[in-house]
């Protein structure tokens, strides 16, 4: 009785503002629903329209490219950084605190700084390229379809890498030094110790961090909205920004909801993989 009285209010709250909107979103996706007008049920017409929309497929490919490269770079870079940090040195706590700054500072605000660094006229990166003689003039970072995607991935890595590094570092610190000593006595070199001691013991942490990162990178909105708004020519639109354009700027709530829902199947696969993976560890 006590427990239900306790969990009741928050459960009701989450049902009202997560569960209900979720179901309502599915309903909207089956409607032709201009903003501020009554909707008309159209069945799967929105999804069929998505299927025949070349921009939709472009968006799907963009999202996969963005998620894949950003995640791999964050994982490899984060692991390298965590291994580097897992040594004894002075000012370790200060450096760790500074390192997390990109992760705690509001994303939109730090992205504005990146936008200025990538500005077509006054990019400091291009100034460096020119100064060092690498390129003159430097490229238009956000004006070229490929470079714009690369820029987005770099900024995403810049922001997300500390999360990987700090979490993996915490994981590394739970590995007992005895294991490394035993491996060294058995003749294992640096690589063998990493391959047969560190990696297997770190695997659960890597897996969970990666799942989180994949979900939130896949559904990213802020970075793209601030840096490119999906441009040039839809080259950097992701599911979230495309759905936003259709629903909020275009006023087509039903179509927008169908694009947003198209994120769900790939994400659901990821979440299922995650819960299956976590289950044996539970007890």
């Amino acid at each position, binding site marked *: 009785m006590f427990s239900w009285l306790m969990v009741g209010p*928050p*459960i009701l709250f989450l049902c009202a503002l997560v569960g209900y909107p979720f179901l309502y979103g599915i309903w909207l996706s089956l409607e032709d629903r201009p903003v501020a007008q009554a909707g008309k049920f159209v069945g799967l017409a929105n999804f069929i329209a998505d299927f025949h929309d070349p921009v939709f497929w472009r968006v799907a490919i963009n999202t996969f490219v963005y998620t894949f490269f950003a995640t791999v770079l964050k994982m490899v870079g984060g692991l390298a950084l965590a291994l*580097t940090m897992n040594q004894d040195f002075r000012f370790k706590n200060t450096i760790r605190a500074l390192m997390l700054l*990109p992760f705690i*500072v509001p994303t939109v605000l730090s992205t*504005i700084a990146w936008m200025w660094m990538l500005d077509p006229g006054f990019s*400091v990166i291009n*100034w460096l390229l020119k100064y060092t003689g690498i390129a003159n003039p430097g490229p238009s970072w956000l004006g070229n379809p490929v470079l714009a995607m690369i820029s987005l991935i770099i900024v995403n890595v*810049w922001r997300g890498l500390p999360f990987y590094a700090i979490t993996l570092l915490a994981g590394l610190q739970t590995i007992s030094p005895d294991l490394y000593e035993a491996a060294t006595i058995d003749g294992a070199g640096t690589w063998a110790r990493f391959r047969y001691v560190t990696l297997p013991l770190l695997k659960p942490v890597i897996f969970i961090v990666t799942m989180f990162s994949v979900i939130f990178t896949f559904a990213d909105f802020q970075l793209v909205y601030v840096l490119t708004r999906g441009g040039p020519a839809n080259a950097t639109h992701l599911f979230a920004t495309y759905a936003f354009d259709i629903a909020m700027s275009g006023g087509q709530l039903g179509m927008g909801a169908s694009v947003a829902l198209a994120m769900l199947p790939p994400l659901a696969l990821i979440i299922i993989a995650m819960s299956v993976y976590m289950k044996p560890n539970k007890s």
Partner: protein
Amino acid sequence: MSVERGGWSVRALKLWIPLGAFMVFTLFPFYWMAVTSIKPNSELYNRKIMPMIVYHPTLKHYVDLLTETNFLQWTWNTLLVAVVSTAISLVFGTMLAYPLARMKFAGSALISFAVAATYLVPQPLLFIPLADIINQLQLGDTLTSVILTYPTLLVPFCAWLLMGYFRSVPQELEDAARIDGATRLQTMIKVFLPLCVPGFISAGIFAFTLSQNEFLYALIFLTQTDVRTVPVGAIAELVKGDVFYWGQLMAAALLGSVPVAVIYSFFVEHYVAGLTAGAVKQ
């Protein structure tokens, strides 16, 4: 640490060079923010001079930001929303976490699964229906709209983190209180919760930073200047069509980051504990 091999050159190669390179990558955007915010426009838009340093520092952009825009109002809105949503999330988080951590009851497994699943639902899946719901409730352009919706992002996380913390607190004290005749509720409030302050700090800091960071809901629900939060205000009002007020934008980015950075600097250890709690079981 295991045996130290090699001299300073090995150490430089294995530690200081990679760490230094990474720190430059991490911190340069902040340096650039700060430098830009104190440059006069004549230097900002001059391609002939070296851009890394400031020749004639000025506070003009800060003064303009504070006097010509609603930046102070945005800051107040952001803080108010963050504090209230964090408080709601901690209360709801505790109400979920305590029974799940301490009692076995029918449906508890289902609830903890649902809470974890809710945590993983990304915002872009919900913003279109929520925008319509907020409209129908006539909550558009009120801070209530974001105060109601932010906790949906924060409660599952707080519940999860607190559940882990609650489980690590030994049960003997509560048992003793119960034997002495205290009710469940009394035991929880007077005996148990005071022991969990570090857990609340971790969850609270995390929730606070997340609310400061939120953008999508604020962008959609808040379209009037006097209810905007800092990120939305900066994007919507310091960029006019093709004209970017770079000096003011950088000043806003820097000032807007200050509240989070200050709180963070006081509680780094708690923040890191919260960050890693989900992934690493000590």
